[in-house]
């Protein structure tokens, strides 16, 4: 029984000018069960992690991360991005079972 994919949260800076390098910050709630932890009755809790994160901008992949159990619960992922024009980010988180969570954010470049 895989943990539910939590609500993603994304933060983009405001007042972005063309050519600025911004930091895109994302967070999703998820236990990231390592598969080595035991519950109170001593049974191994099965592995259940988010293993892939993909960021696209106007449909083009700009950044990807493969996660292992050594990533903390509620994975925080931040990456640099060069803002050239306004557009739409789409973020996807995929767990071991193949379930996806997605989130869209508009980048406004002034």
């Amino acid at each position: 029984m895989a943990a539910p994919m939590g609500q993603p949260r994304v933060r983009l800076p405001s007042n972005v000018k063309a050519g600025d390098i911004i930091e895109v910050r994302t967070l999703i709630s998820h236990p990231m069960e390592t598969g080595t932890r035991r519950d109170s009755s001593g049974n191994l809790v099965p592995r259940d992690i988010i293993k892939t994160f993909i960021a696209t901008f106007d449909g083009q992949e700009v950044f990807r991360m493969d996660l292992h159990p050594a990533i903390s619960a509620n994975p925080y992922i931040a990456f640099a991005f060069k803002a050239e024009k306004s557009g739409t980010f789409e973020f996807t988180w995929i767990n071991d079972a193949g379930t996806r969570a997605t989130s869209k954010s508009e980048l406004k470049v002034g």
Partner: protein
Amino acid sequence: MDRKLALSRRTALFGTAGAVVAITLAPKPASASLQPATEAAMKKLIGEKKLSEGRITLRLPPIAENGNTVPLTVAVESPMTAADYVKAVHIFADRNPTPDVASFTLTPAMGRAEVSTRIRLGQTQDVVAIAEMSDGSLFIGRQEVKVTIGGCGG
């Protein structure tokens, strides 16, 4: 004669002590030996290619009170243009039960090769980063983190 002997022995002792200090203070080269599991995990991702030192900055706290969530930022010196960019960055924790931590796939659209996340460290150890450049060259960097309470669900 005795006196001369004593002096030379003292000189020798000081000399030895000085050498030991020098070795302790010298930074550990990034290519210093790693655990066999880490070597195997690296080989799986990049094969047996030559690793150069430099270009990688690993920002980690020197002491982590809680190994369950250790902030990590890795930056690689690169112009991040279509002709010259960082293709991938792999992170390993040398003494975790499984050394693989994360692999990042980067693109020139990022403008700067810099990513951050939070990682679990089971004990005091070195965190190692390998950067794969678009020309195929590879760089390695490492940084020690002292962990007070381990964070691998043990």
